[in-house]
């Protein structure tokens, strides 16, 4: 019996609180519509004791359903209490013992290119908001979507595209790893990783936290569709001065602007250059200034604060 077992009933209850929170924060936004757009998140919640890797499980699930002429439920969430072969980007290890929130959201992509580039931001914002809502006020976002306490990472995300083998439908497999009640890390991660339990000094109910995280995902994925519909209707975005509201919220949660950073496509093994972050472009690109005053905008890669 899995420990982390959110249900649709719990999610529905949490969303009733979520709409009130959002209406207070964004009185000019039709929050019911946003939450309806994102309502697909958690259409199925599939909890496991253990998996090798949630992303692999999702791929197998999609292939199996499609091979039986079925249709994969958009918004399916796959969770596992532990994962034995989890990994980060490139070939990096990700430690997934009991106590964390490990899983994957299956998003059948119906977004335009200009919106789908924000999917990685949406999951980062959702997690950072969830962390803050349980008392982690010091949590920040590092471009693109690492959630940090100081310089230590509490959560990381992977978004991988996958095309269904039968129908060619494009899915985003949104992988998430959030250190919640796990206290110890392998030596190579000990100096750069932390958990909510360590930061808050208390353990959290894993199911409750995951439910909050899913509710935040509902809102933030809903925003992608809501803002896209406004743009298609010729209206301005809902954020300050007509900016995309998701990006607006990301900027408020992030401390990347103003930081001296090392940038690299794979910054751990191949750092490319040092620069100062001076902003984030309307399309999410990271704007950096070199010491000679010239400016570069990057849309893909990673940073580490210096």
């Amino acid at each position, binding site marked *: 019996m899995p420990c982390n077992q959110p249900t649709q009933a719990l999610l529905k209850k949490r969303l009733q609180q979520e709409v009130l929170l959002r209406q207070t924060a964004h009185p000019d936004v039709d929050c019911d519509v946003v939450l309806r757009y994102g309502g697909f998140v958690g259409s199925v919640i599939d909890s496991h004791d253990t998996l090798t890797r949630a992303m692999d499980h999702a791929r197998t699930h999609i292939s199996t359903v499609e091979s039986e002429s079925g249709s994969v439920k958009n918004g399916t969430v796959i969770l596992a209490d532990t994962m034995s072969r989890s990994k980060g*980007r490139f070939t990096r290890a990700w430690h997934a013992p009991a106590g964390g929130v490990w899983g994957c959201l299956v998003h059948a992509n119906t977004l335009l290119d200009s919106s*789908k580039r*924000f999917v990685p931001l949406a999951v980062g914002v959702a997690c950072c908001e969830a962390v803050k809502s349980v008392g982690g006020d010091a949590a920040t976002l590092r471009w693109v979507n690492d959630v940090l306490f100081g310089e230590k990472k509490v959560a990381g995300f992977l978004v*991988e*595209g996958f*095309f269904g083998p039968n129908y060619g439908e*494009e899915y985003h497999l949104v992988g998430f790893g959030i250190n919640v009640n796990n206290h110890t890390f392998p030596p190579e991660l000990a100096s750069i990783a932390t958990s909510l339990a360590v930061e808050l000094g208390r353990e959290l109910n894993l199911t409750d936290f995951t439910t909050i995280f899913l509710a935040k995902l509902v809102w933030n994925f809903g925003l992608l569709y809501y803002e896209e519909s406004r743009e298609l209707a010729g209206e301005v975005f809902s954020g300050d001065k007509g900016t995309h509201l998701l990006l607006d919220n990301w900027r408020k949660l992030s401390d990347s602007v103003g930081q001296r950073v090392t940038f690299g496509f794979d910054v751990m093994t191949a750092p*490319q250059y040092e620069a100062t972050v001076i902003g984030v472009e309307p399309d999410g690109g990271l704007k950096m200034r070199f010491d000679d005053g010239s400016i570069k905008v990057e*849309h*893909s890669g990673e940073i580490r604060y210096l």
Partner: protein
Amino acid sequence: MSNEIDFDQILSKYKSDPYGYVDVCAVHTGRVQFKVVNGDEAHAPSGEWQHIPGTSLYEINRERNPKMITSQTSGTVMDIRSELDGQFVEAGEKLMTIRHPLKKKEIIEGILKDVLYLFPAPETAKYFFGLDIQSRIDKKGARSVTIENGDEIITMSLMKRDTPVYYTGEGGVIHSVYFKPGVSVRQGEPLIGVCSPEKLQLIQKIITKVKADWDSE
């Protein structure tokens, strides 16, 4: 992909006019103000990370949002549409041309692009080979790696979203790789050039011929 190539005709074409002509078009609708005139020298982005912008060509202003557009190519400005200076133009309107002197390597690439099947970048993003293809390239070299229509060959990385890219086109060997890991490729630019294995010899002949017949670098 063409099998018949008249080398002499191609080479004489390049010898009589050893330039590439790059049209500069309006990036979106707006009011344009030119920053160059005919005959000006334009410079491409420079610096180790290509972070120093090229020569300013024109400013385009839409809804009080001015944007300076800089040259992506080195060469001489020509055919500038000076009648459009200060006017509102549509997206894609041609504004000027930059005449770019071709180097030997560029001529070879230009000819190869006529004989290879070029697989384009689906979005402006960074690209890297899939692990399987990369290990095959590392072991044997790209020209020993055969790919078929529908193969998952490359991963596109944009805003930390990694998407597999499936090859669509004639099967063959990867002759040319036009992307570098960590460097952005614009949408529509070629990622790889593919040819059938039996064409490899023909292509080598082209390269040898250009190298032998072309004096300058």
